[in-house]
């Protein structure tokens, strides 16, 4: 795995020392580029981390931007582009020839339309929102797991600010669950900002409890405000009340979390100790001195990318490891991980054209360097799968986390040059439920067929997505 190759040693070194000071136990070692490099994040958890029931269901979606030309996936994992995934081939169903039928009638640019249909199967009504809730959220709602977080989203992206292009977890129309982009923010969401728990009966604990009760009174006042304003009696228009209802739902979710913390059921299990926080890195592109944390939210121009001077190779392992940790620690069981947004523009070292424009200029049989970015993305995916598939961490029900967590992997278009919604490539990794192997549905099956297949197999719902585009369940995959 070359993902750690470009990490500046000073930053890495500092971070590793931090980690060492906390965790003296055994550390995972990743072999790559001839050197053994410690995974920056995964602490020595052992088997006890997940206290959850043996039948815990998990589900993750993984999105990457700018499409995958059908020819890249045609040779299966022999393909140079998919080669980073070869080690996981026995655990992946490679699903080719899917026709994205809901995307064409969506709103906005084709990247937005394709992207907003991913793991949703409905056209987006506007550039500002997806058309329905996403599969990860539906899974969370169907299973109602006793986790501290609902569906967890983390995302590395740069240029494509349209929310439907960089957000792939939706709680419903108008309710994005945007991916956290900064590793430190993700860490704080998983482990909170608070220090170690106070011993029972201590004055510190009494103080903590006092603070919680007071915070609750604040939240109560806030909740009352939303209740009052979203009621018909408030006199506000239905549209405004609908917007505020969405906000209210988010406040409710905050409230649920607060209650869970009070009940002592939220957060990581005691056996899953928080490591030291990661460095506060914001994803950066080509960046010379002085632009350290300011590019915190993407929206960058195409100044550079996954090249030697961007910090993506440093940020991605942190995001990915934290995401894996959330699953290991049973802080969340569903989520989305996004590695670059639909239509994202960034340059690879040595390439004068950004990957989006390369995608458009790409022609079958005439490689122009676009394969480098897709190969790099598959490398990031492989890094995530490797974390999920760590044999040192097995679940009570047997197998690695990956063996027990289906991961639906996809992108917004097939052949990117014409923004083709035909012949899309998806993958289903892990999860025992699906049969590994290569499938080609010849563009005769839709993305709704795929999502329905996944949804039914996972016990979320028998059908998922816009049923006008449903033909049948995918044969042979389950």
């Amino acid at each position, binding site marked *: 795995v070359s993902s750690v190759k470009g990490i500046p040693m000073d930053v890495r070194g500092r971070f590793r020392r931090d980690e060492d000071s906390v965790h003296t136990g055994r550390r995972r070692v990743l072999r790559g580029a001839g050197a053994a490099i410690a995974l920056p994040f995964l602490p020595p958890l052992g088997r006890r981390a997940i206290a959850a029931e043996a039948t815990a269901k998990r589900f993750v979606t993984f999105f990457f931007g700018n499409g995958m030309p059908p020819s890249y996936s045609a040779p299966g994992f022999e393909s140079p582009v998919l080669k980073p995934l070869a080690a996981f081939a026995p655990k992946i169903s490679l699903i080719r020839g899917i026709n994205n039928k809901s995307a064409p009638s969506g709103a906005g640019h084709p990247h937005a339309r394709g992207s907003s249909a991913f793991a949703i199967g409905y056209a987006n009504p506007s*550039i500002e929102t997806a058309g329905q809730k996403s599969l990860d959220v539906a899974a969370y709602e169907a299973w109602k797991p006793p986790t501290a977080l609902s569906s967890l989203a983390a995302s590395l992206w740069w240029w494509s600010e349209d929310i439907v292009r960089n957000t792939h977890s939706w709680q419903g129309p108008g309710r994005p669950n945007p991916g956290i982009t900064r590793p430190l923010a993700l860490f704080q969401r998983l482990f909170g900002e608070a220090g170690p728990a106070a011993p029972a009966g201590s004055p510190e604990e009494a103080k903590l409890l006092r603070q919680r009760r007071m915070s609750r009174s604040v939240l109560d006042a806030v909740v009352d405000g939303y209740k009052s304003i979203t009621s018909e009696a408030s006199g506000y228009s239905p549209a405004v009340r609908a*917007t505020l209802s969405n906000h209210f739902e988010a406040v409710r979710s905050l409230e649920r979390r607060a209650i869970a913390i009070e009940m002592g059921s939220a957060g990581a299990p005691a056996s899953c100790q928080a490591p030291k926080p990661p460095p506060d890195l914001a994803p950066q592109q080509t960046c010379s001195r*002085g632009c350290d944390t300011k590019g915190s939210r993407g929206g960058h121009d195409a100044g550079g990318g996954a090249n030697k001077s961007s910090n993506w190779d440093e940020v991605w392992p942190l995001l990915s490891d934290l995401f894996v940790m959330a699953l290991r620690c049973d802080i969340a069981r569903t989520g989305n991980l996004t590695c670059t947004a639909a239509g994202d523009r960034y340059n690879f070292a040595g390439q004068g054209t950004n990957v989006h424009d390369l995608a*458009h200029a790409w022609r079958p049989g005439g490689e122009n360097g676009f394969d480098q970015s897709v190969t790099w993305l598959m490398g990031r995916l492989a890094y995530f799968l490797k974390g999920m598939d760590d044999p040192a961490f097995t679940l009570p029900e047997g197998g690695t986390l990956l063996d027990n967590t289906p991961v639906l992997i996809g992108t917004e278009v097939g052949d990117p*040059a014409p923004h083709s919604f035909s012949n899309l490539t998806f993958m289903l990794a892990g999860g025992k439920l699906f049969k590994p192997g290569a499938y080609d549905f010849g563009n005769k099956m839709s993305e709704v067929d795929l999502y329905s297949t996944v949804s039914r197999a996972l016990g979320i719902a028998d059908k998922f997505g816009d049923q006008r585009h449903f033909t049948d369940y995918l044969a042979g995959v389950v």
Partner: protein
Amino acid sequence: MGPPPAAAPATGQRLTDRQYANVLVDLFGVDVHDEVAKLPLDPKVEGFRNAASALLPSDLRIEGYASLAQQVAGKVDWTKVSAGEGLCTDFGDACEKGFVAKLGRRLFRRPLSDAQIARFSRVFAVVKGEGEPFATAAGLVASALLQSPEFLYRLEKPGKVDDFDLASRLAFLFWNSVPDDALLDAAEKGQLSGDALTAQSKRLLGDARAKRALRDYVDDWLDAERLLRTSRDPELFPQFTGALASEMREEIHQLFDRVVWKDQQSLLEVLRSDKTTVSPGLAALYGLPANGGEQSLAGMTARQGLLTQAGILTLTSVGGAGSSIVDRGVFLVRNFLCEEIPEPPSNVPELPPAMKGQSERDRLAQHRADPACGACHNRIDPLGLAFETYDAIGRFQAMDETGNKLTGAGTLKVGNDEIPYSNAREFIAALSKSPAIAECMVKKFAQYTFARPLASTDEAIVKDLGHKFADAGHRYQDLLTSIAQSAWARTAGVNP
């Protein structure tokens, strides 16, 4: 859903991140701009980040608000605040309700109802019961107010725009923030029409918050803030540091500051200004005296006004290299001429980079020969050719990276005239003749003010504002004042 009623601003929009941060500075002197920057980015819709329809809530954002409110509660000396307002500072009905009413009115932009006051007074009871002091309770009440819908959303009831609604609209228009006590008092007394409204407009314009609001607008309209998130390949552009990017943005703001506030000139002057205020780093980039500061550009063919500023040229160099003729042309078409240019069809091959003997200009000439491409590029390219002589950080370049000579010459069609130009200065002189620029400035500002994309129903008010803008010598101040006195002020809001 039909088109929105003419002049109706979107209502029910969440505060933008910029507005949220402004309010905390204005009311509490707490600067959370950097913290707010960590919330999910407000998306751009048709050029602006304040479109009501796109300001969606999410769990992440709501947790961010909770955390921000908590931080603010902890940063302010609430006893001092209460005492400074002439309020008592101990538990008890009078102090508690007084505090909620006073602070609530500022944050909610109207007096609180008894039910609202009761809602927040309960926090006092809980805190008192925990044995904590009044100041802690006051901070927690502030935290609750800051997370409440009446603060976070610009709520107006359907139907009539009341004086408090208007006070808010005016405050966000002039200050991009909440009303101050004086404006709320005027609303309470019903003194927001006729001469009183004119006087208020004048007062608001004279405040430092108006200067900040113009900066906010320029950051949004021209995307100047994006410079802070822009980088360049350090091998190609070692001098492009975060500091220089920040200085580029500041140069843009200084230009608007001088034209609008100091010299009180026409807004069009930003295009033609022969003065600029630069850092030493930018002075070096332009070949100006090393100390920087305010400098004259008279006599320089390569520099004049906004469009030749390194910041704008950097922002419009989307590929980060080359001459960026198309991107710079599109920037002018969209932001200064308000013409609609569609995205290129997806099957158009990318323009190959310049090569020896064939500059970007030459490539584009071939491209335009194809009628399918020419339809848009005949419009775009003449607006960008003048800027081929600037590189990706706005330095003047007489040759491209492959050694082709660059001229920056072209012909611009303005109305029925074909005006030839041989450099950026001549181009700017030609472009300035276009009446579309002033009209576009009005359209852009109206879109921003209405917090929604304009519709055909808005044509009349935009046209009317345009006449007034022209009559007043295209001054920003007068544009704001005429918006304040237009139908906008009393037209019921439209749902996002």
